[in-house]
């Protein structure tokens, strides 16, 4: 797809080292670019996308040393329009944060100040997107959460308060209590991003269904 190729190209052309050094996350994150990947899985979570669609949030991410932001909007109806030109699904923000369309090009000696924003709705597998991310901002669905934890990505979970009987917040609280992620609500998103510290998190050790299978065998004789 053209956009993916452009993104590849722009990352390759951007030679300078990102201020703040390395990728901060565990192995697997991309070379010198630090991507923030926002995912809502197969749900619709407009509140999160709206909260991310904010110039001050992008400024916060740039200040923290991230170089790109990817939003996976799922079934959501809200399309970002403040951090990308309306109607575009991708934008490259330069220097002072002015919004420009299309791939990095002509006057690009200052790759350091570039910040790429893009969004899409679905991909067959988000694993690659997550692997490239230095920070994953996810809805509180168990599938997305455990996928990110399994890939050992620093994870910020945003809980969707419009859901009925919200048991997702319980999962977020439990895992946060164990130090594997941090969580917030869409209203607190900016504050949570400012305060987010990946070094304070502990790696989640994935479980194994083998024990459960053994329990079945014992139960059934």
């Amino acid at each position, binding site marked *: 797809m053209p956009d993916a190729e452009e993104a590849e190209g722009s990352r390759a052309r951007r030679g300078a080292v990102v201020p703040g050094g390395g990728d901060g996350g565990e192995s697997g994150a991309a070379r010198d670019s630090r991507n923030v990947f926002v995912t809502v899985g*197969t749900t619709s979570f407009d509140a999160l996308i709206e909260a991310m669609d904010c110039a001050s949030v992008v400024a916060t991410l740039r200040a923290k040393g991230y170089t790109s932001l990817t939003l996976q909007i799922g079934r959501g109806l809200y399309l970002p329009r403040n951090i990308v030109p309306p109607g575009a699904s991708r934008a490259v923000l330069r220097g002072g944060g002015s919004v420009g369309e299309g791939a990095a090009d002509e006057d690009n000696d200052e790759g350091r100040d570039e910040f790429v924003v893009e969004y899409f709705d679905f991909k067959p597998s988000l694993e690659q997107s997550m692997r490239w991310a230095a920070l994953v901002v996810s809805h509180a*669905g*168990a*599938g997305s959460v*455990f996928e990110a934890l*399994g890939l050992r990505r620093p994870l910020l979970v945003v809980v969707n308060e419009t859901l009925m009987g919200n*048991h*997702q917040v*319980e*999962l977020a*609280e*439990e895992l946060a209590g164990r130090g594997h992620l941090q969580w917030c609500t869409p209203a607190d998103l900016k504050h949570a991003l400012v305060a987010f510290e990946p070094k304070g998190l502990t790696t989640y050790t*994935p*479980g*194994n*269904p*083998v*024990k*459960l*299978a*053994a*329990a*079945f*065998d014992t*139960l*059934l*004789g």
Partner: protein
Amino acid sequence: PSPHPVLQPPNHHIYLLLLALALLGANVALRAVTVALTPPPRRRHRRLPQVADGAREAEGRRSAASHWSADASSAPPIQSAANTSSAPASYWSADGSSASPSQSDASHHQLKTMIVLGSGGHTAEMFAILHALDARRYAPRAYVLAATDTTSRVKVARFEERVDKDLAAACKDAVTSDAECASWRAHTITVIPRSREVGQNYLYSVFTTLYALAFGAATALAQRPDVVVCNGPGTCIPLCAAAFALRMASPVFPRWAGGAAPVVIYVESIARVASLSLTGKLLYHLRIADAVYVQWEGLRRKYPRAIYAGRIM
């Protein structure tokens, strides 16, 4: 003008509460009938030849390894009515341990497994569990899907392909017969209607639920599984209830039930940390499930009879 208080459509939970009460009533009634009709303990050692024949036919439908060898002095399996007196006793045990109702099954004996699949997350977890099970023991597999679920079909196909591949080596083994190998790979897919669509009218929901109940019951009775595995979707309630009823009725109506005594296993989703889902609560409190597994230790405080066997992801 505010909506009329009486004519407001009740929410999902009231409708399900009525369903729960109906199931509870059926549960109590069946238990009472079972106790009333159970022969007294002194009959335990007497074998009833006509019943044993019926059970033998049912056994014959399963895999090669058979209890019903030519040796007539072997003890009858628990599923036959000759052991009627001991079967209800195990279900009545007040402690948390699930008294295994299948002492008859040798460890290598095949278990026909009914697997209830729901939407996305549920299916993903279910296949994670199935991958860990021995495909030779938990076979043939009968998958049950909701009518509106298209992605699960694809996942079933992919899983069974992988099972085929994994068993290819064992199948080529000179010791394994073709019939045995075929039985390891055998699987069916049944589609059942959904109990209720989102936002459906309350009165109409009663009928669609009854229809789904009947359909689920018919499926469970037709398939006669040894094990029913479910991990959340509401579609499993009719199936689990029917399997449970089959097991309760089996000692009382042995000829009809054909010696079937399905074990109902419920695995709560990893997403449920502080409380069981509605399906889980129904199966737990109504004691329809033989075993309710939870993936977070904290749930055992709230549901003492639940079993913690680690997380699956």
